């Protein structure tokens, strides 16, 4: 983590839908190579905030820059410098492993030579040499997740957004997945994880906790636990989210 370089900065970022304020003046910074956990209960405003950061939704007010680009004016540049992976959609199940890699490499404008050399390294790192020509749909879930992450960082984005990346994965695969995340973070890629599972949160350098559209807490897991004199992040979350008014997806 490089504290000298901020890759995400937001200032009073707000999104309103009519009278409803989905995210309310959120202000935070995320550093290069940081693993940043973005947590909140259902309906707290996580998804709305993340959509704005990805350039998919225009904020109602406030400022934010992603990888140095303004999210109002330079959304295309923002999109080119981020990667995205969610549990629901990540890869095309009816394409092979290699076809998926080539497709996403192509989408981000990588040259064929780059795709070729990089994909070989990637396949080797994942130990998937035998699976290159298999359909993604036929792979076990854990492999899909690892592959999906590798594809999301294939174009070496500045930031990768992960939406509940390891829900339901077996514990060993999950560890392998986090190994990949650590490695990417070491290379200087910022990891932005949204989840409502606290055990995923414990891996993060810092965590922000959203309740009813506000960021209620932002610190490292250790310090949050100290602050709320809690044993686990679960308890911290419970303390913070218990009084939440909003319940909705």
């Amino acid at each position, binding site marked *: 983590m490089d504290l000298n370089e901020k890759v995400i900065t937001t200032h009073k970022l707000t999104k309103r839908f009519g009278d409803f304020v989905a995210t309310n003046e959120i202000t935070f910074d995320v550093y290069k190579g940081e693993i940043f956990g973005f947590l909140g209960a259902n309906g707290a405003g996580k998804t709305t905030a993340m959509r704005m950061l990805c350039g998919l939704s225009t904020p109602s007010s406030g400022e934010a820059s992603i990888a140095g680009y303004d999210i109002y004016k330079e959304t295309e540049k923002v999109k080119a410098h981020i990667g995205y992976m969610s549990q629901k959609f990540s890869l095309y199940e009816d394409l092979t492993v290699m076809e998926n890699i080539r497709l996403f490499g192509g989408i981000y404008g990588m040259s064929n030579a780059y795709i070729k050399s990089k994909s070989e390294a990637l396949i080797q790192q994942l130990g998937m040499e035998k699976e290159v020509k298999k359909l993604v749909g036929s792979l076990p879930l854990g492999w899909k997740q690892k592959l999906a992450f590798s594809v999301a960082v294939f174009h070496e984005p500045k930031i990768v957004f992960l939406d509940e990346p390891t829900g339901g994965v077996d*514990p060993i695969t999950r560890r392998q997945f986090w190994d990949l995340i650590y490695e990417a973070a070491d290379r200087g890629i910022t990891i932005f994880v949204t989840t409502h599972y606290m055990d995923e949160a414990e891996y993060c350098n810092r965590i922000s906790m959203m309740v009813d559209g506000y960021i209620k807490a932002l610190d490292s897991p250790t310090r949050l636990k100290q602050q709320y004199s809690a044993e686990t992040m679960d308890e911290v979350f419970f303390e913070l989210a218990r009084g939440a008014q909003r319940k909705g997806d």
Partner: protein
Amino acid sequence: MPAVELQSISKTYNNGELKAVNEVSFSVKKGELFGLIGPDGAGKTSIFRILTTLLLPEQGQASVVGYDVVKDYKEIRKKVGYMPGKFSLYQDLSVQENLEFFATVFGTTIEANYDLIRDIYIQIEPFRHRRAGKLSGGMKQKLALCCALIHRPEVLLLDEPTTGVDTVSRKEFWEMLKRLKQEGITILVSTPYMDEATLCERIALIETGNILSIDTPEGIIRQFPKLLYAIKAARMSQLLRDIRQYPEVDSCHAFGEFHHITFRQNEDALAKLLGHLQNLQHQGLEIKAITPTIEDCFINLLAKA
């Protein structure tokens, strides 16, 4: 007579290509809160569908409240309450309409068994005219539980009820299960979240169709064969790599804030490793002996299998 019993149940898909459940046997005592713990694809849903008579087992025998899942499927369908993994109520019907519908389907009324669901229903009652599809994850789950309970079932089968809901709702849900247990209802619940295992009386750990272990959560933790240490330092990923390369380390896994380590031989291996790490200039080293979690046990059992 156990409330739920499985004897070497097997189930395959795609003409035997995919073994979903492989000779699984376990039994749930009457009034017990039993957890089936395993990741996606472990075979949990197949087991639930066999027990709810939705799927036929290819091999083995299973019974629910004494009735055979193949022969006596009609009896079982009267006696169990079932909550499938996916939210399975009518999204375009209101909370109250859903509940009324399922009460009628089971030949009863909301009033007849209101005492059983009251504690849960009160929480969603303010939204009783809202369509089920517009509820939050936690409220959907409560409504689904009410619908599964409306006919006062003897056995409650809950397939991943806490998947996709936030911590607060999860916690509330487990408290509801405890209260239902006190009413004498047998509960078989599955979850992919290892931290929920300790909330059950007994658990079965399951992976790719095979049972890894069946015991009380404490029993499973006691069976962990080695001493377990938690370690942290300033640069966690470098730490992970360095520890893994150290020959006397048996396993090292990232566990959030800490890495968990076991050694090949426990005598002075720890001290040697610490010395090694200090030589590698690791800052802020912190290490402590810890009690394994169910997740540690699961990893250990998986590595052996």
